[in-house]
C-alpha cells in the first residue's frame, strides 16, 4: 500500500515537475498515520533518489549552471543542517503547520506559468567576481545571461535549505523562486540547476536524520522504491501527457492536503 502510494506520488511528481517529496509526508502522516518524523526521514530518501536518478537526463540537455549550483549549495546545505537541528527541538504539531503553509505555497506555484525575465540585463559586480554568468542553448543557438541579486538569492537558498531539512522536501519551488525570480536566471537553467542542488541539500539533512534514528529501513524501503519507479514511469509518459490539466489537478490535491495538515497540526493530532 505504501509502495503503491509512493509510486503514484513519484509519477505525479515527475509529470508536474514538483517532485514526489511534497506529497510523501502528507500521504504517510494523514493516510497511513505514520509519525511525522519517520515520514520526513523516508521522504528525504526519496527526494535524493529522484534527484540523482533524473540528473543524467537533465545534464545531457546542457542547461544547468555548475557554478551557480555549487555556490548556492553552500547556502542550502548550511540551511539544511539548521533545519534538521531545528526539527529535533520543535513540536511535531508546529512542523505539521509549517509543512501545510509551504504546501499551500507549492500549490499556488503550480498555477503560475513560467516567464523569462532574463533578457538584456547588465552584468552584476558580485556575479562577475564569482564567475556566475554563463550561456545556455536555445532555439537560436547559445545565449548568454547575467546573474543578478546574488545576496538575495543566497539568502533565499538558505531558507530553502532550512525548509528542506525541517520538512524533508526538496524545496524545489523556493529554489526556482530564488534563481528565476530573484537572480533572473533563465527558467530552464533554474529548474535543471535546482534538480542538481536538491539531492545535495537532502543528503545534508538525511545524514543528520539517519544519525538521529529517524530513517526507518522498513518504511523507507517501499517509499524509495515506489517513488523511484513512479518517477521513471512518469518520465516515460511525460511527452504525451496533458501536463496543464495534471498540474491543476495536482495543485488542488496539494492544497487540500495542506489544509488538512494545518488543521491536524492545530488540533495537535500529528
Amino acid at each position: 500500500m505504501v509502495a503503491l502510494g509512493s509510486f503514484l506520488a513519484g509519477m505525479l511528481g515527475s509529470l508536474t515537475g514538483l517532485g514526489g517529496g511534497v506529497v510523501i509526508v502528507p500521504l504517510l502522516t494523514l493516510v497511513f498515520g505514520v509519525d511525522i518524523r519517520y515520514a520526513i526521514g523516508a521522504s528525504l530518501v526519496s527526494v535524493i533518489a529522484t534527484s540523482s536518478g533524473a540528473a543524467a537526463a537533465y545534464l545531457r540537455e546542457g542547461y544547468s549552471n555548475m557554478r551557480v549550483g555549487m555556490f548556492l549549495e553552500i547556502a542550502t546545505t548550511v540551511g539544511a543542517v539548521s533545519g534538521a537541528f531545528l526539527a529535533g527541538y520543535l513540536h511535531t504539531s508546529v512542523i505539521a503547520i509549517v509543512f501545510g503553509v509551504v504546501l499551500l505555497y507549492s500549490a499556488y506555484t503550480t498555477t503560475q506559468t513560467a516567464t523569462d525575465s532574463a533578457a538584456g540585463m547588465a552584468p552584476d559586480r558580485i556575479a562577475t567576481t564569482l564567475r556566475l554568468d554563463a550561456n545556455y542553448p536555445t532555439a537560436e543557438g547559445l545565449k548568454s545571461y547575467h546573474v543578478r541579486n546574488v545576496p538575495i538569492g543566497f539568502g533565499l537558498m538558505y531558507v530553502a535549505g532550512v525548509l528542506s531539512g525541517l520538512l524533508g522536501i526538496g524545496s524545489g519551488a523556493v529554489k526556482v523562486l530564488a534563481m528565476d525570480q530573484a537572480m533572473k536566471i533563465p527558467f530552464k537553467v533554474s529548474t535543471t540547476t535546482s534538480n542538481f542542488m536538491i539531492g545535495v541539500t537532502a543528503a545534508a539533512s538525511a545524514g543528520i536524520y539517519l544519525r538521529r534514528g529517524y530513517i526507518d529501513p522498513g518504511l523507507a524501503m517501499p517509499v524509495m522504491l515506489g517513488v523511484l519507479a513512479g518517477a521513471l514511469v512518469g518520465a516515460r509518459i511525460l511527452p504525451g501527457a496533458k501536463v496543464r490539466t495534471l498540474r491543476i489537478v495536482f495543485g488542488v490535491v496539494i492544497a487540500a492536503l495542506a489544509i488538512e495538515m494545518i488543521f491536524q497540526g492545530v488540533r495537535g493530532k500529528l
Partner: protein
Amino acid sequence: MMAAGGGVGEKVDDKNVELFLGKLLRWGVLLAALVVFFGGVWFVAESHDVPQNYRTFRGEPVELRAVPQIVDQAIALRPLGLIQFGLLLLIATPVARVLFSVLGFALERDWMYVVFTLLVLALLIYTLTSRSGV
C-alpha cells in the same frame, strides 16, 4: 560571443565532467535501489505478518544509525542492515557528485570554486559522521 566567466575550452570541460557525473549518479541510484530491494524482499519474507507500527515514534536502534554499524549489519547480511546500507549508498550519490566536482574545478584550475565545493563536501561529511546528530 561574450561568454563572461570562461573561455570555450573551459565550457567543454564543464560539459564532460557533468556528463560523467550524470552517469555516475544513475548507476549509484540503481545500485542503491537493488540493495534496498534485495534487503526488502528478505525482510518481508522473514518478518511474515508482524504488523509494523510507525504511529508512535521510537527512533532506530544504534546499529541502524551510524555508518560503521550499518556496514557491519550489512556484512552480517541482516535484512534491515542491508536496506539501511542501500539507503546509505543513495545518500552517498550526491556526496560523490560533490567530490567529483572538486576534481572537475581543480582540473579547470578554478581554485575559488575548489574551495566552495570543499566547503560543501566538508559539511556533508560532518553530518554523516557527527557524534549524535544532536
